[in-house]
């Protein structure tokens, strides 16, 4: 038994230790790793009717992956332009949502972390309480706000800023706002956590030496907050790229999210292997992208857990 395990059992007792370890293993292996492996397995198999499963035609194949790139065999196009465009647009949009969220949340997190007093608790509560309402309802609420006859359009037209209502939904503004709003806390709290432990004297020292506010953030606060920023960005990016409810409800008729394609494969086409392949491609691409960005900004995996 490795020493950290022995230490763990000594501290928690054999019974409690086994229970905790068992639950954690059940969670990671039973609920995450095994289903994902099963998806991976699905993605390499042809879509067969139940009687043929396990039969001679049930062999490993790359067909499902080829489909994403080349489209249906004998199709009119060389590439599966529709699905690929959706795939890349989803990634770019998720990156945009992440960057937008970071720009919005960093000042909020900094303010929350560096200001003392009771009003900060109220401020934090005001951020948290809307999250008691479930995601779908929040998305619908935004749809009501951004709709053609919605609150925002009524106001803008009423004030005479626009002559005719602006279509926020078709222009994807509602979608970006919805995705941004959905994950705002996941960006604020990791950054808040890190900045809260930053010694105020360091900010004052930098100021005392003549640094402007921009310079203080560039040289002192942001380098210090980097683990929190990367952890927040990773979560927001992964969840935005994998979001389903917000694109479904807030997306315009012509703008599909890649997750909606996956959903269609599973649900409408009953093509689980195809859906699994799409899901695996999305997951692997997102992970590689996150790792590449972490490498670019010199963030260690260990820092994310801080």
């Amino acid at each position, binding site marked *: 038994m490795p020493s950290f395990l022995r230490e763990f059992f000594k501290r928690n007792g054999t019974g409690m230790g086994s229970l905790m370890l068992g639950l954690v293993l059940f969670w990671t292996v039973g609920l995450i790793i095994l289903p994902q492996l099963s998806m991976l397995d699905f993605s390499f198999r042809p879509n067969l009717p139940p009687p043929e499963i396990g039969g001679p035609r049930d062999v490993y194949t790359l067909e499902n992956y080829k489909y994403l790139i080349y489209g249906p065999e004998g199709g009119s196009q060389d590439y599966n332009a529709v699905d690929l465009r959706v795939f890349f647009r989803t990634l770019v949009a998720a990156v945009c949502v992440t960057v937008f969220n970071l720009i919005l949340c960093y000042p909020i997190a900094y303010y929350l972390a560096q200001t003392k007093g009771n009003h900060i608790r109220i401020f934090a509560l005001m951020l948290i309480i809307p999250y008691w309402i479930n995601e779908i309802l929040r998305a619908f609420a935004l749809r009501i706000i951004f709709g053609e006859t919605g609150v925002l359009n009524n106001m803008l037209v009423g004030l005479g800023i626009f002559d005719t209502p602006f279509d926020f939904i078709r222009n994807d503004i509602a979608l970006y706002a919805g995705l941004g709003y959905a994950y705002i806390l996941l960006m604020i709290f990791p950054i808040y956590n890190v900045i809260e432990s930053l010694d105020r004297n*360091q900010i*004052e020292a930098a*100021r*005392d*030496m*003549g*640094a*402007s506010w921009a310079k203080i953030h560039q040289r002192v606060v942001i380098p*210090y907050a980097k683990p929190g920023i990367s952890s927040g960005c990773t979560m927001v990016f992964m969840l935005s790229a994998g979001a389903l409810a917000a694109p479904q409800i807030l997306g315009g008729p012509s703008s599909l999210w890649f997750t909606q394609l996956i959903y269609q494969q599973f649900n409408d086409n009953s093509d689980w292997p195809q859906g699994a392949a799409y899901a695996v491609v999305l997951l692997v691409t997102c992970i590689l992208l996150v790792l590449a960005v972490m490498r670019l900004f010199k963030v260690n995996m260990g820092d994310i857990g801080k």
Partner: protein
Amino acid sequence: MSAGVGVDLENLWIRFGDFVAVRDANVTINGGDFFSFLGPSGCGKTTILRAVSGFLEPSGGRVLIGGNDMKGIGPNKRPTALIFQNLALFPLMKVWENITFSMEIKGASARERRKRADELLDMIALPGQGGKLPSELSGGQRQRVAIARALCAEPDVLLLDEPLSALDLKLRQHMRTELREIQQRVGITFIYITHDQGEALTMSDNIAVMRAGVIDQIGDGKAIYNDPATAFAASFVGENNVFRGKVKRVMGNEALIQTNRSGDLVARISSANQGRMKEGDAAMMFIRPEAFALAPKGATGTHFVTAKVNHEEFEGNAFNIFMEGDGGKELKVSIPNLGQSFEDHTGQNITLEYETKNAVIVPAGELAAE
């Protein structure tokens, strides 16, 4: 070398809501001086420093640096550099980047900065350590890096907020000497905040003793120690024995005090209070432990004190005698160890004598907490 830039506080008031942190402070700090604010925690000394550095706007009065009113001028625009109590080195920057941060802001090239960092590292006796992170240095080394970082900005006034308090005793004593040397080498004004009277006395040209937002006395170390202006200054700076009583007769610069426990004693009225004390005033007389000498048994008069010995201790350089004193406090006497024989007096009454010039009278007032 220039005479340095002075700092003046004129009728300075600082309030936080109803709380008065600094009450009508008037201080003139000469250019090139090592000036200390000495007082217990919460006396407002750090508040004064923050007002000088610009992190805090005074509620009333003025801060002048080099004769210029600093009102409305932010900390990044003042010719001051502050060394924080916890040093506040940037943990993610290397030592040389820390030291030359002020140059980076002015847009100096990396080469210039490295060169300057090397000069300063030589000055603080840490050559070749520029590439390390602050966390890789010892406490004393970090201390010196903080000084170098502050000096790199070439301030006219260096402000130090109890920078030695985190160090252990040996290092602290060593850094006192080093700080004083650095100050004399660079010749700029140092304003030093401390609650440690040893630090203040050993390093400072002048000291302001503070109590509860009020400056009790300003003077050089000898004046503060030998000629305290208030009961607080007398009891806060160094060890002192208090005798409470009232003025029986004023005789020029001396007075006869009728003490509560030790009969009538004569002492010198402290300079700040001469001409201000009159018959019947409540007064306190202070005599330092080292100002007493053993007197022949039974001697009486206005410079003899007799009391019972509670216990004695041998400190190496001195024999300490603790006797029943005034107001529940023990009377402490230190007799220097010059190799003489020394008998144990525990439980006996002994008589001590002092010279009038070594006993000082101030108006009765608040004593420093032990």
